[in-house]
């Protein structure tokens, strides 16, 4: 059931992307308002898909929130990207940002459903994951990761000149800052809840496990972003580069650590 719903959701993200393309072709504002409505519907259905998976896991007798393996985290990551778009909606007057974000969400959805390396079965929770900290840890981390997607898009667009399509530089900087403002406290909360959980599960709130270490590196990069921006008054390309580097670090923390470096979080692959 959940697979079917999530399959439809993937197609909807594709449609959202094509609506943007259509908008650029015919320049009708109506298409954009329709796109937003479709995004709300998609997010709702996406959530329904996750809930269906949740219910299904109870039917299998291993009931747990669908936040426990790589497949589920990819699906949830895509949902968070849509969610952050809705939070920032008021500022996203230039559709290029929603277009790129929906493309990235589409990428995660299709990777989750197509790649052979992603286990799609609902798996039981190993003892270490059986904790209420799981939910808050995963939710905060992925909302942060999603916010950093927006920051990354702004950083990337900053380096591109495309009249009337790419928002003005100041607007990009403002949206970039807003998204880091959501992402940084969320990442902090994610790291801290993870630490508390680790204390109760393994007896140590910090053990320099590769994932922990890379989350710290990511945190440091965004801390530098904020200091460079507000204390040093850095602007422009330099800030754009920091947001790109920050996102690369996020991606490495999320994918790279699972694939290349082994550690306590290895079960997430």
């Amino acid at each position: 059931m959940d697979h079917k719903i999530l399959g439809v959701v993937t197609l909807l993200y594709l449609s959202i992307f094509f609506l943007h393309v259509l908008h650029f072709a015919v320049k009708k504002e109506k298409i954009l308002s329709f796109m937003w409505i479709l995004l709300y519907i998609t997010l709702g259905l996406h959530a329904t898909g996750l809930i269906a998976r949740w219910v299904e896991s109870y039917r299998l007798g291993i009931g747990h929130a669908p936040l426990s393996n790589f497949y589920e985290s990819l699906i949830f990551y895509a949902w968070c990207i849509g969610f952050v778009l809705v939070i920032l909606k008021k500022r996203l007057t230039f559709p290029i940002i929603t277009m790129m974000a929906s493309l990235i969400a589409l990428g995660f959805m299709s990777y989750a459903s197509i790649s052979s390396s992603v286990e799609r079965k609902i798996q039981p929770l190993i003892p270490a994951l059986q904790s209420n900290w799981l939910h808050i840890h995963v939710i905060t981390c992925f909302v942060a990761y999603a916010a950093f997607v927006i920051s990354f898009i702004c950083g990337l667009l900053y380096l591109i000149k495309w009249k009337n399509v790419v928002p003005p530089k100041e607007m990009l900087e403002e949206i970039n800052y807003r998204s880091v403002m959501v992402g940084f406290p969320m990442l902090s909360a994610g790291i801290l809840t993870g630490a508390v959980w680790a204390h109760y599960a393994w007896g140590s709130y910090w053990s320099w496990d590769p994932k922990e270490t890379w989350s710290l590196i990511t945190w440091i990069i965004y801390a530098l972003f904020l200091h460079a921006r507000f204390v040093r008054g850095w602007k422009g390309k330099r800030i754009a580069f920091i947001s790109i580097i920050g996102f690369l670090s996020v991606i490495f923390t999320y994918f790279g650590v699972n694939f290349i470096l082994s550690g306590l979080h290895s079960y997430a692959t």
Partner: protein
Amino acid sequence: MSVIKNNIYKFLSSLSLTIFLLCFIAFGSIFGTVIKQKADVEEYLSIYSDTTYTIIKYLGFDDVYHSPWFIAAIVLFAINLTLCTYGRFARLIKTEGKVDLPDESELSDMSMVFHVGNNERENTIASIKKGYQTIYEGEEGVVLQKGVISRYGVYIIHGSILIILIGSLIGMLFGYKGFMTLRKGETKDQLILRGTPLKEVPLGFSLKCKDFQVSFYPGGEPKDYVSKVEVLDNGRVVMERDIRVNSPLSYKGINVYQASYGASPSFLFTIAGEHVTLSERETYEKDGLVMMIARSESAIHNFGPGVLVAYLDQGEPKAVWFLKDVERLKEQKIQGVNIKLEDIKEDFYTGLEIAKDPGVWVVWTGFALILFGLYANFFVYYRRIYMRNIPDGLIVAGIAFKNREGFKEEFEKLKRKVSGNGS
């Protein structure tokens, strides 16, 4: 001299140093994730050449997070953070004490400003004051503020980072990490400290494993490990609890975690008519007979499971195999004593992680404060409203340092509300 001192202070409290140190720590940490940490020499030499290994060892890359340069960077960072935060905080406190009401022309120049007539004065002041805190009130007017905590957010965050560092230092100095394995029915009062070499130290109380259970999902994945454990202090049972993953036992500041489990064989013997259960490496000593289980195999050629028993024959070490399924080798004489291997059983043992960290509550405090500080810094906005009496009424001006658009909306609402009062 004071110039040098001043320069050192400036350097130590500078943001450039902060940026450098954060980059340094981040970059240094990467080495710890790509180079295997705290592995054996052989393991390194199987991956790297002799020269590379020498460099790794010399630079401390085999244990990055405990290497002198990494610790030095963190200590320097703590100093830098303290000085920098203190300096800025002192400046804030100085300016915070002085609240003055700008004069009329200055207020008129502000981007958010409106006037009200004389007859609306009292109403206006009363309605605007709602939700705001009065920080100055005089003949000539009033100064109001809101969200003052946001001005302290940065300091709370920086302070919390220091608290977390202090907490982890307390843990490092006064805490330890170790482990203990307990078979069913076994009692131990010593734990093995982690570190090289491993060291046995007293726990201060005893743990007795009454039972250990592992359950599995239908697919074969482990579902739950539970150790039923008794805590004995001075020989008296003071606590009885199930230890599970994510649910440690805590006694006298020491936490006991369910970490792993394993199976080890135990051997049932009849020695001179007496039933004795021995496990691997365990020694039996009675009436001059000294014997130890040296080794065991699940299959010796085609003869089934066997156990190698070592004993002393007039000071000479000797060994003999007992094979469970071979009648002739099941029962043998050692130093004239009849010994029979009755059975070999697989016994589960529980692996407990034992940690003491008196700094953990300090760290938790730091965590809570940092979240509060982040909230105050990013989601609370400092706003100020000035109201000054002028000959023909009142001038109201507002100023915000962050989220100006948000304040503009609020200010417009205030303006509409005030003008809706009757004018």
